[in-house]
């Protein structure tokens, strides 16, 4: 029975990761052939860093991801504090609303945002599709993840901590930074990392909201597949996979650290 379940697990991992393994292996293949192995090379990686288009979209991706992570973390944390202070009925309503964008099909979110940006642009001339709309879209879909990471930290916090700080003469804003933020910081950090990863990762929403001036890396990869493909794509995809993997590991390590810290306290 035990061996059976082991084999089953192994098979699942095989199915999940064999495509990625193939991708990684062939990113080092010294040939344009996508079937036959022709020896090891780093040529495709070198090419990658000479490709203007890719470098440009890498810059866009990182800029958007960093800005979106920072801004959505600030907004999401404030939102979580607001929701936390509500009475139970309102709080549950807001949390439900917060969850909708996460379960909503991305394509619906993407298209609806695009329609709205186009509408606003036609009516007012503001929000021309481009870098700014891309950033707005990313901030929007990142916020719910931040809220979801910060909420449990607020719930775990002794609700008198803030009051105690104010009681000792601390003005409200400074009480937040001195007492509340250190308490919820692990949640804020994982929220920010998660927002960064989600933004880096996103294709569908970026595809509809980037306009023609600001393409992110995943969108560029997609447009490259329309032309005759080069193994450059394999190399690029491998790098993106590794970057996201690294971030996910970071998020997990942060969470485990926090959990074990809590464990020690008790």
């Amino acid at each position, binding site marked *: 029975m035990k061996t059976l379940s082991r084999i089953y697990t192994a098979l699942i991992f095989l199915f999940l990761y064999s495509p990625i393994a193939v991708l990684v292996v062939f990113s080092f293949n010294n040939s344009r052939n996508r079937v036959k192995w022709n020896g090891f090379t780093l040529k495709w990686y070198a090419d990658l860093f000479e490709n203007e288009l890719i470098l440009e979209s890498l810059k866009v991706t990182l800029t958007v991801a960093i800005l979106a992570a920072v801004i959505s973390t600030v907004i999401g944390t404030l939102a979580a504090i607001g929701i936390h202070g509500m009475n139970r009925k309102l709080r549950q309503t807001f949390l439900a609303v917060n969850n909708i964008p996460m379960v909503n099909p991305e394509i619906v979110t993407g298209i609806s945002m695009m329609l709205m940006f186009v509408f606003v642009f036609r009516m007012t001339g503001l929000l021309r599709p481009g870098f700014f709309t891309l950033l707005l879209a990313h901030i929007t879909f990142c916020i719910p993840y931040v809220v979801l990471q910060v909420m449990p930290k607020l719930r775990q916090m*002794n609700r008198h901590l803030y009051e*105690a*700080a104010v*009681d*000792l003469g601390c003005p409200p804003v400074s009480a937040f930074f001195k007492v509340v933020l*250190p308490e919820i910081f692990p949640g804020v950090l994982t929220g920010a990392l998660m927002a960064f990863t989600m933004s880096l990762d996103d294709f569908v929403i970026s595809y509809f909201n980037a306009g023609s001036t600001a393409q992110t890396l995943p969108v560029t990869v997609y447009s490259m597949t329309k032309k005759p493909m080069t193994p450059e794509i394999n190399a690029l995809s491998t790098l993106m996979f590794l970057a996201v993997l690294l971030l996910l590991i970071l998020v997990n390590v942060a969470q485990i650290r926090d959990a074990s810290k809590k464990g020690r306290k008790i």
Partner: protein
Amino acid sequence: MLLRFHAAGRDDIHHTPQETFYRKGGCIYMDSKNIIRLENISVSFDDQSVLQNLDLQISDGEFVTLLGPSGCGKTTTLRIIGGFLKPDSGSVFFDDQLVTDLPPHKRPVNTIFQRYALFPHLNVFDNVAFGMQVRKMKKEEIRERVEEMLRLVNLTGFEKRSVNTLSGGQQQRVAIARALAIHPRVLLLDEPLAALDLKLRKDMQAELKNIQKRLGITFIYVTHDQEEALSMSDTVVVMDSGKIQQIGTPQDIYNEPTNAFVADFIGESNILDGVMLSDYLVEFFGRKFSCLDSGFEPNEPVDVVIRPEDIDIVEPIKGDLVGTVTSVTFKGVHYETIVDFKGFKWMIQTTDFYDVDRTIGIKLNPEDIHIMKKSEYSGMFGDYSSYSEEFDEMADPEAALTGEEAEER
């Protein structure tokens, strides 16, 4: 250092000779000097009234206890004084200045929260120093005063410890040091000892009282433990369902309860229906008794309170009333004897043993009989007919609390 603060905090006394003050039990009292005044305060949550037209005046330097059953509005009253809750109507005065709208960080009042609320990411030193750092005091002065405060609460040498590694009693001391370090005029304490075991609680009671006397700060103390309230306070405020039932010294509250609720909540009481025939003469159980109370209408129905420890047991023929013992419980200092008088059961505390089914007589002296006006609480308390040990334990808030605390750990 401590003495300097003590004197500095009391400058007003020396400069206002027209105000009379006197010493009593080591505390300084001043006539006509309120530090806090609540006027006509009402609060409700979700249409449920929690405080109703509450009036309360607290004198400078007093140890005041708010005493009442769970949910009667003690914490709510404290939060209004601390500024964490705005009353729906009414005013809060501090030194005769209106502070109803003043936010908590601007009030010279500090709070000890029930769950301590120490800052978990700071060590003991930084917790105690917090309020002084907010006030941007000099580093040297902060260090000095933290040490002084830790000495005051017997925690010298704990500066570097993380507050998460402290025991409940130690955490409570840090909370007290933290609040006292910024020299508040008034300290609010919300059931500060509820989470401690009995022995530690007794020690801390004495220690708190000591600190209050030494610093001369006004303490407003919340508890639902009547013994704690009686032994620590200068003034006890008995509350029930959002209203103040009685304000007075512990002796007043015990000896002259104003209604059946107070009589029952503070200690044990036999409460009987009676009729005030004239001044100093009351009738109950079909007999006339002389008493010390006056000022009632002729033939006014009243509640009569007789404390179990005031009743003298005598031979049946010599007794004012004759009854039969139905149960006896040994309580260490005395026997708790339940006696049936014509179907109405009294509790009598006596050092002599009278066995079940024995017929006894009792003698009531005028000073043992306390008369109260009829109130909404009449007929609800003071009958020991359904009395049993089990019931007593269940109704004991302390027993209930210990169970709750145990679960939380």
